[in-house]
């Protein structure tokens, strides 16, 4: 890449993610064209959302797709000659595929593994005796741009796979996806991260780069001038954030309704689609506002609805009327969309105003502040457990919503577990064994005996450890590491509307704070104190005072000093610490020059194990404050329910 190229890149403020979309689309079409004639597409649920972000049905139809089915149902007896399966190479899913292939002999079957063809997948089909009857391939649907600053790596359930099953297949897929990004925009000059699997990912990336280097293609890729670094956050480093209630508008929609494939789960009252993605202008404008502003927002939306109605009366001349009628179609659509959004916002508002929501938030804030639950809060937990609803609709997990959301969130297992996990995580060793035992009993009585497995799972991944296990954690210099982190990283921010803590009503996500450490953001960083230890000794008030200084765009943005000086803090965050410089190849002198000369306009933030909408909103706020783009690459967009769900033993 020449210097002038990099100049235009900076002008466009970093990488254009839409490039990926075009790439993915052409790969998909090429695969569809290998099967002649009319065909049916059978989709893994986990693939369908990604697919819809890349291509629309009209385009599929153009390439012979007559109908689409979900894997659970299969193509049935649809009158088609060919069936194309797009599934993840997951054992259970492939067994289902094999079953359907056996039942539908006489058809041409093509099984495309997403995002990569694995030996494991091949083996499952072989065991089932259908490997010879299908065309096996892969569709690299692994870096799907959901927005101009969000890429989904399409590996749902990654946290559970890694930490519960020890199945690290996903790391390879993520590494391949990141290699794809590096192929387009050059190698990340630096890979920084936190977490054991973040380290594994970084090593995979290094190895893949080395292998490229020894191939006949040579070290063709230069260092990136678009990204200054990739920051990898292993979800295990911050499990608290996803458990908390998100308080941005999008976060709340996800908590109240659930968001599926860029739309509100279940749609509006009539079941029609309500967009919940950046493609929708209304939604784009409101998704990141804080919870306190939802009321005002709703008012503004209603007013806008009115104006869009009124505009027809303002037409006076024939020409004006004609132009109005010309716009009518678009206006009606816009009007409908707005109406749907207002209905959604109303439901969200009803939820946030309910007693139940207030009680829940109260508990979260108490815990975040480091206090224990008071009797009233305990009573609330007891009540939720006693009046458990085993059939509740769980937003973020279930997709078939039947009823409009009730003002009070139903007492689902997910809701209970989120509270209990938060208690265990924040209280740490202070949690009494007696309390834990009582909870254990309550969960089993309320949700069934098979949740002994769920509780064991949660204990094993460290979300709900029995106090005996929590106490025996070695290597920590602090009695309650989380309390230390709260202070050291200024996680509890009571009243600062500018802080990223707005997304969680006073709690700054640890994941985002880690990034702020790297970017030397004054919210965590005191420029005067070069030593972190000195900073710690000073009273907290001092540190707060420095935060009020205006952030100058020149002083922050992008990954700067690395982790140096923060060793004591990082020691309390679970997992390995990663900091790798990807040096340019010896002969790539221009790459080095670039690196010294131009400051890359973007940083890639990789969430290994998913991130929440609220975290994305917090990063967007940082982007504005820093004048630097933070592009998110996440394995999935989570809420607390979808985070916990893979850990739950379902019936």
């Amino acid at each position, binding site marked *: 890449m020449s210097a002038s190229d990099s100049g235009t890149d900076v002008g466009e403020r970093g990488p254009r993610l839409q490039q990926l979309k075009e790439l993915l689309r052409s790969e998909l079409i090429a695969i569809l064209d290998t099967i002649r004639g009319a065909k049916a597409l059978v989709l893994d649920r986990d693939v369908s959302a990604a697919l819809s972000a890349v291509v629309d049905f009209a385009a599929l139809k153009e390439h012979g797709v007559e109908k689409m089915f979900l894997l659970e149902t299969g193509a049935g007896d649809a009158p088609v000659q060919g069936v194309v399966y797009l599934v993840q190479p997951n054992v259970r899913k492939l067994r289902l595929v094999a079953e359907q292939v056996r039942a539908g002999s006489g058809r041409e079957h093509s099984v495309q593994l997403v995002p990569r063809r694995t030996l494991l997948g091949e083996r499952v089909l072989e065991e089932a005796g259908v490997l010879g009857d299908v065309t096996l391939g892969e569709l690299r649907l692994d870096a799907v741009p959901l927005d101009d600053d969000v890429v989904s790596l399409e590996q749902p359930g990654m946290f559970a796979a890694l930490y519960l099953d020890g*199945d690290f297949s996903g790391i390879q897929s993520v590494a391949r996806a990141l290699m794809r990004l590096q192929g387009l925009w050059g190698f990340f000059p630096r890979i920084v991260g936190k977490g054991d699997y973040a380290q594994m990912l970084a090593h995979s990336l290094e190895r893949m780069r080395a292998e490229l280097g020894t191939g006949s293609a040579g070290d063709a890729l230069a260092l990136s001038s678009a990204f200054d670094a990739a920051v990898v956050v292993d979800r295990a480093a911050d499990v608290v954030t996803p458990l908390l209630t998100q308080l941005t508008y999008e976060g709340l929609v996800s908590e109240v309704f659930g968001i599926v494939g860029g739309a509100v789960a279940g749609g509006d009252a009539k079941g029609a689609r309500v967009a919940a993605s950046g493609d929708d202008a209304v939604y784009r404008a409101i998704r990141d506002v804080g919870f306190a502003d939802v009321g005002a927002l709703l008012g503004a939306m209603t007013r806008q609805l009115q104006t869009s109605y009124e505009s027809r009366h303002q037409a006076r001349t024939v020409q004006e009327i004609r132009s109005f009628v010309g716009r009518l179609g678009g206006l009606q659509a816009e009007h409908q969309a707005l109406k749907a959004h207002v209905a959604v916002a109303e439901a969200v508002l009803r939820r946030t105003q309910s007693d139940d929501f207030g009680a829940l938030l109260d508990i979260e804030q108490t815990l975040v502040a480091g206090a224990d639950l008071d009797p009233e809060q305990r009573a609330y937990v007891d009540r939720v457990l006693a009046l458990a609803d085993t059939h509740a609709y769980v937003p973020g997990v279930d997709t078939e919503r039947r009823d409009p959301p009730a003002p009070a969130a139903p007492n689902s297992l997910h809701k209970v577990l989120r509270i209990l996990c938060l208690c265990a995580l924040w209280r740490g060793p202070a949690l009494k064994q007696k309390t834990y035992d009582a909870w254990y009993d309550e969960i089993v*009585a309320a949700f069934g005996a098979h949740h*002994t497995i769920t509780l064991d799972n949660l204990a094993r991944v460290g979300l709900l450890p029995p106090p005996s296990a929590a106490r025996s954690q070695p290597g920590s210099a602090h009695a309650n590491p989380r309390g230390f982190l709260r202070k050291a990283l200024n996680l509890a921010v009571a009243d600062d509307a500018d802080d990223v803590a707005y997304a969680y009503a006073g709690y700054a996500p640890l994941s985002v704070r880690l990034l702020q450490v790297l970017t030397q953001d004054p919210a965590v960083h005191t420029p005067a104190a070069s030593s972190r230890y000195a900073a710690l000794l000073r009273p907290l008030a001092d540190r707060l005072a420095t935060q009020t200084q205006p952030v100058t765009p020149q002083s922050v943005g992008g990954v700067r000093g690395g982790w140096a000086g923060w060793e004591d803090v990082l020691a309390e965050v679970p997992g390995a610490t990663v900091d790798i410089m990807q040096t340019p190849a010896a002969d790539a002198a221009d790459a080095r020059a670039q690196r010294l000369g131009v400051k890359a306009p973007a940083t890639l933030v990789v969430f290994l194990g998913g991130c929440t909408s609220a975290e994305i909103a917090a990063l967007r706020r940082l982007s504005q404050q820093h004048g630097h783009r933070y592009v998110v690459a996440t394995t999935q967009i989570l809420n607390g329910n979808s985070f916990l769900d893979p850990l739950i033993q379902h019936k």
Partner: protein
Amino acid sequence: MTTAEWHALQDTFYRKHRLYQMQWAGLDLSKFRIAASSFAGPIALQRDDRLLLEAGSAPMLDSSIHVYSASGQTIGTIEYEGLHMAGFSWNAREELVCVQEDGNVRVFSLSGRDPVSFSLGPEAREHGVAECCFWDQGLVAMTQDLRFIYVNDIGEPKPRMLADAQLTEPPHCWTVVPPHLTLSRHVEVLVATGATVLCVDAAGVQDQLLDQGPYARISVSPNGRLAALCSLQGRIQVVSIDFQRSFSECTAPASSALADIAWCGSDAAVLSFGDEALLVGPFGDTLSFEFDAPVHLVQELDGVRMFTDDVHELLSKVGEDSKSVFQIGSTAPAALLYDAVDTMRAHSSRADEIVRSIRDDMPQAVDTCIAAAGAEPDVGVQQALLRAASLGKSFLTAYNGDKLVDMCRSLRVVNSLASYAVGIPATLVQFHSLPFEEWVERLLHRNLHQLALRICAYMDAPADQVYVHWACAKIRASTIDDDALYRVLRERLDTLPRPIASYVDIAEVANACGFQRLAIRLLMHEPRAASQVPLLISMGQDDAAMDAAMRSGDADLVYFVIFHLFKALSLGDFFQTIARTPAAARLFEKYCTDMDAPVLEDYYFQDDAFAKSARLIVVENLHESDAVKLVANLKVALKMLHNDKASVLEAHAIDQQIKLLQVQQQFSRDISNEEESYIGLTLNETLARTLASGNYSRATKLRTDFKVPERRFYYIKVHALVGRRDWAELARLAHARKSPIGYRPFVDECVAALQYQEAAKYVPKCDVQDRAALFMRIGFYHEAAQAAVQARDVDTLRQVHAAATDPTLQHDIAQQIEQLTSR
């Protein structure tokens, strides 16, 4: 004179250039079956086993396949034994694909690797293969019972049947239309039967409804738009591929039977009749070429090669560039420039005149000369043209010389490929249409390492593949021991500036040749852990393979090793081995869980993993609806849990579950058939349902039996009582003794059920501060006002004032507010 090789056909010219005098002295081609590869590749000969031979006359009596270069030099011999071949052909990678009568296909590579075999499937095995038709990626075989089987990709063969054309007798001829040339992008076959042609693909058969057949030969043009048909009567037609339009027609000389058709470019066909080759142009005019012996055709991208026992010639269309330089009487700038070189050499001043006359057209003249050099087969003429270009260039100030340099370099490589010793007479067009590495590969097939290396260096290309091939060849041919061989290889490979990429390829060969120690030592140099794994496994180095797989960070490779171990070892050994790598053990566990594999039970059992075994039983019984069986199974699980001290809570939970199931069985006996069974409900649900059905004493017993905490019981009971509107019982519950959950839940439940009167009864029992707000919520403003006064809560009082509609009340409240605030 260059144009001596030119033959005019209307206004176009065809160049017939003598490539080689064949070096295979005294070979009689008529005794052989021949497969010649395109892209100037090798020629394979096998003695035709259906022809009779005179005793003692044949030099080659064996059935092996002899491979010659295009110049007739021996490249090698492929030992072929076995059944009669139905057909053989070269594919795009210079591998010889041989289809046997019995439907087995063997793919021989020139680089000494073992042949790859696959079968065309049961139909082919049963009926036998009659004939084959190939394209560069795949093949179609016709069985003896006249069905067609196709393989799209010989590298990954998946034999499939085309639709049944219902043929009753062998077709007169048939040919294949490769997938990249068809509209559907799938392979089609054209079958001449009766007077017509059928178009057969996987989906169906389409009769083209022709009546001028029967056709003895069909050939499809390289771009797939035209087909040449030759009828039994010798009439040649060129038609569009859909058989709708006829472009040209002519009649063949009746002298001998048609042997072959090949396309020269996309608009002219060459037909061979014994010693004669006939070029049929786009308008039906013909050019005839005579040879001394039967001629064989090889279709190329940009022409046709024709070879006999004796000579090898290339027929190709003369391009516009060559025409403008060499056509007699041409006054094109390029032609003038070409002349200028001669005149300059003769020290004539006319050279200057010529150059001046070209003037502004000079860049074009230079370009044309360069292009013409590329099209010219003769080295001398190439040089002359390039010299002309060079001369012209010197008159231009701003001309980018890269084109000239590139042409010189490319031609130098092309010419060295075309030498007799190498025998790859590729044209420049062909040279550019394949990646450079392919050409290097072709040199390596002929074991020309030195030349390959030089060419790589000359073209500034990485030479890894040359070294790898060299090392492999060295190992294959070696007779010394592992260590000596290792030293020899390292000596050479260590001198390279950059380490080569794939030691694994070399190690593989070493292993295959029995040098296992060498293979392991070489593997250590392989940078990609991923590539080491399969080879280590095949060498029986299981532990090393597992290590390499773990190092690669790719779970899929670990699975690869696991599956291998699982197959290779006894179950006990397998468990022991896998336990050494805990990460692998977890992957195995996960796989078995997802496969519902019974082996997991054994695994947990031998590992004394009691809790896991118990959980397995719990999961297996999630959908068990027979309570008796369920209890029995859970008891087994419970017994296992008792073995594990860490699972006290879990054991207790399962114990309780068993008890609960027994109680539920009992309850279920008392209900009518329409009602849903109790089995499967949770303890809380069971309680709630018992209460909802009014069976309070039973609920109380449940509560004591299961030690349900008081608070939980109250929450459930209040909810259930409000649900069934049993206000008397609710009141009894409230008054029996002080509620452990307070009275707020009583109010909340009533409010949620819209029973405000009932709710009002319990508000006074709530906290003083809450009462006003609660009364407000159910619209009891008088009481709300009183409560607020009691609590001295001015704010709430104001709210009541605003909400109340009764003027007297409003007045009272106003007074109260005044009193409270004035104090």
